[in-house]
């Protein structure tokens, strides 16, 4: 009975999403790959040029490799800091201190603000501090880098914290009790009981922070715009600048996007594999 109904309504449920997926993702994606081998102004007048876009991408006078290095470094730092602080806050806010709900809400709110707005707000704040040195955030890529790390942390910590809190509250009380009866202290319990059970949360959080940091655009665009020069431009911004900066380099921008996709896909898959291996059942 159930399976017959399911079969009958299967198209109803699957069609809308698959049509959307096809129109909004699959077709543009395949077109994008094709366009990376062409020179074009609009998608309807592309001219095939083979691999020359990919050759230009790795040439020394292009900013792509620099942007990639900057992005990798940024991702490393922000994944570590975001997860560290999010986990810390989650631990504190599951201890039942007064005002727990208020703190959880307050920490989560930055995540509801758009990246462009956050970028501009933090630009004002950071410049307000740097003005004591008589400079602003565009003075050096190092300022831009740490500015981006701060903005990203501020935005993502609350979200990741909620995921960790959900994980922490689902750790069975019996296990903690058993551990304390066996004489385990707080940190031993944390390390050997709670953290192994939280691996699924770590998987989700590290995946989300990794991909979000890697493809960061809005905050980068608003906070530094790549200044000074293009030194603080991350890959997404570099692709954007390439695509729109010069007539005739749309194909190059497209090729960068394809390379970017490949790197991101590989990194994300490897990361999921690695953390999956650490998971245990309670």
């Amino acid at each position, binding site marked *: 009975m159930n399976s017959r109904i399911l079969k009958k309504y299967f198209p109803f449920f699957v069609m809308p999403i698959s049509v959307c997926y096809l129109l909004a993702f699959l077709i543009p994606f395949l077109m994008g790959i094709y366009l990376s081998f062409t020179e074009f102004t609009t*998608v309807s007048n592309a001219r095939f040029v083979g691999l020359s876009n990919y050759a230009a991408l790795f040439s020394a006078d292009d900013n792509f490799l620099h942007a990639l290095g900057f992005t990798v470094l940024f991702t490393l730092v922000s994944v570590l800091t975001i997860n560290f602080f999010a986990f810390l806050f989650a631990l504190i806010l599951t201890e039942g201190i007064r005002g727990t709900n208020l703190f959880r809400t307050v920490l989560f709110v930055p995540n509801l603000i758009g990246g462009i707005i956050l970028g501009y707000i933090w630009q004002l704040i950071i410049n307000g501090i740097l003005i004591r040195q008589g400079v602003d955030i565009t003075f050096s890529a190092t300022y831009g880098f740490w500015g981006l790390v701060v903005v990203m942390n501020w935005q993502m910590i609350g979200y990741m914290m909620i995921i960790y809190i959900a994980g922490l509250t689902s750790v069975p009380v019996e296990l903690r009790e058993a551990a304390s009866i066996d004489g385990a202290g707080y940190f031993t319990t944390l390390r050997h009981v709670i953290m192994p059970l939280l691996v699924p949360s770590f998987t989700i959080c590290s995946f989300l922070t990794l991909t979000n940091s890697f493809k960061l655009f809005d905050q980068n665009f608003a906070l530094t715009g790549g200044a000074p020069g293009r030194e603080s431009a991350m890959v997404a911004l570099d692709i954007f600048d390439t695509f729109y900066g010069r007539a005739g380099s749309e194909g190059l921008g497209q090729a960068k996007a394809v390379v970017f996709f490949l790197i991101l896909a590989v990194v994300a898959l490897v990361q999921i594999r690695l953390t999956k291996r650490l998971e245990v059942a309670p």
Partner: protein
Amino acid sequence: MKRWLSFAVLLAALVLTVSACGKNKDTLYFLNFKPESAEAFNKIATVYEKETGKKMRVVTAASGTYEQTLKSEIGKSDAPTLFIVNGPVGYASWKDYCLDLKDSELYGHLTDKGLALTSGDGVYGIPYVVEGYGIIYNKAITDRYFALQNRSTSVGSMEEIRSFEQLKAVVEDMTAHKKELGIEGVFASTSLKSGEDWRWQTHLANVPMYYEFEQDGISVADGSVPEVSFRYSDQYRNIFDLYINNSVTDPKLLGTKQVADSMAEFALGKCAMVQNGNWAWSQIAGIDGNTVAEENIRMIPIYTGIEGEENQGLCIGTENYLAVNKRASAEKQQAALDFLNWLFTSETGKELVTDELEFITPFDTFEADEQPNDPLAAQIAAYLADDTRTSVPWVFQLFPSQNFKNDFGANLLKYAQGNLSWEQVKSEFISKWKSEAQ
């Protein structure tokens, strides 16, 4: 059977939703380049529909995003019929879409045929507005300076300034007296935030490049320039240094300043001068607490210290050319041409152009008294009428790409912050030009 029916219904519903987005099939679609004229064009569309019964749709690209908006809009099935091309470099990327307008009525009305965007025998873009820029100053403040007893210059008024030396002397002396003048700096902030630096990487660079092209016999009609020597880079540096060292803002803090900040500083009387063009009037007048009286706003040419600049006028020209989409249907193309004729030749249209758009137009259908009455436009008209002045055309249309301009702007910022030597700014200007012009 029933299953397929439900399938079909669903599909039909989806198709309907998707196609509902593109319904304006038979209306004229105009993609506007100038955000400051967005409201005026919307009003024009309403009046046009009321008067002729023909519908039109105006979409305005946000500031600095015109090329990308055009890129995505023109690829659609409901593409703009009427759009703007930015000079020869813009034409190079859109030549497949520009209709030859040689036989159009509007081209016939163009007073100086040399202004049109041409290629071979064809006319692919018609300018519709003449604009000018220079150094705008607030006469109330400069008069206060010239009335000072203890000033150290012999120049008696802004009109007397005919060279960079004089300008520099006046500006530096004004900076020395800024407390008495009640200003925070002579010049408004040199906005060097990326995307906000066009006044320097494009407009200011126009002056030295004009003299260089003049010497080399290059004109805008040539379409592209493979290589330059940036011969007058020291003169560019002269004026740029003057701007950043006598400004409201410390040179190290310019990287986040926007054009709007500069215009606000000027409007609020915090500074005496700002480099900008006649389009800035509405911006100045529209700022809350504007202290600059209409009769006190004046313009002088940008002097840089190049020989022979005593007779230099304002930088006057256009980079905006009307183009009609070659790939649109014949009816749509006709609708676009009809609209242009209505706008620039009919009484109602002309009134809207002068009063709403406040454009100085290059067409012979406009009488001498049919010019906008804002004070900056009046300044441009006065300079144009002065036979002793030679206007500087907008040769920056030949700058090879947006990338080139952005990189130059970024280097100017690094130079202002003290992180890049002027020698490097110059050599990168030359090398980037060469690599971008390929």
